[in-house]
């Protein structure tokens, strides 16, 4: 069986009252690999 090469993750945004953000928002997302 081929080895999986992708890991999945889900970001969920909460507001300051610990409730999930309800409305659509624009998110600037940065993903950095710490190795290189």
């Amino acid at each position, binding site marked *: 069986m081929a*080895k*999986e*090469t*992708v*890991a*999945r*993750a*889900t*970001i*969920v*945004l*909460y*507001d*300051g009252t*610990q409730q*999930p*953000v*309800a*409305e*659509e*928002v*624009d*998110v*600037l*997302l*940065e*993903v*950095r*690999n*710490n*190795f*290189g």
Partner: protein
Amino acid sequence: MNQTNWVKGPVVQLNLQFFDGPGDNYTVTVWVKGNRGTGDFVTADPKIHQVLKFMLIPVPTKITFRPWVELKAKYPKAAEYLGLGLVDDAAAQQRYTDLQANKPASLACFMNLITAMNRIGIGAGKTPLDYLKKIKWDDSFAQDRFFGYIDPAMIPAVEATARDGGGRRGKGPRSPSSGCYAQLQTDRV
């Protein structure tokens, strides 16, 4: 694999390349207009679908406090220790009011620390709060610490807990590191 791009939230799906080695450690950061940037470290693992929960803190930040009656009902420990050494409830409420007006960030830190300390088990069903006898409300009461006096009996309790590898009470999620810590002076009171 580094990327920076605009996506739609509040739920964002991520695919992280898995190398099965040191290249599997990532830093994920998000910014939403009007809020402080936030993020976390993630280790890619195809066997685990991680859920990263990020709280958006609006900027500029404004600290709001509950009315005294509500605080007592919902966070009785915070209210109790605000009144430590005072004669009655009215005096504790006055201290709460004064701190809100003069040292809101320090008060917020204090309540964070009291809440955290109330969840740290140090043996015999006790927490650090059970040993806290006096709090210094002078200029040393700051937004990243407070000073106080504890019963010296706390020292062997902490040492025993450290030996046992314990120190946690309750089943709730661990609190994120707040950068706050308590500096407690031991003394007999």
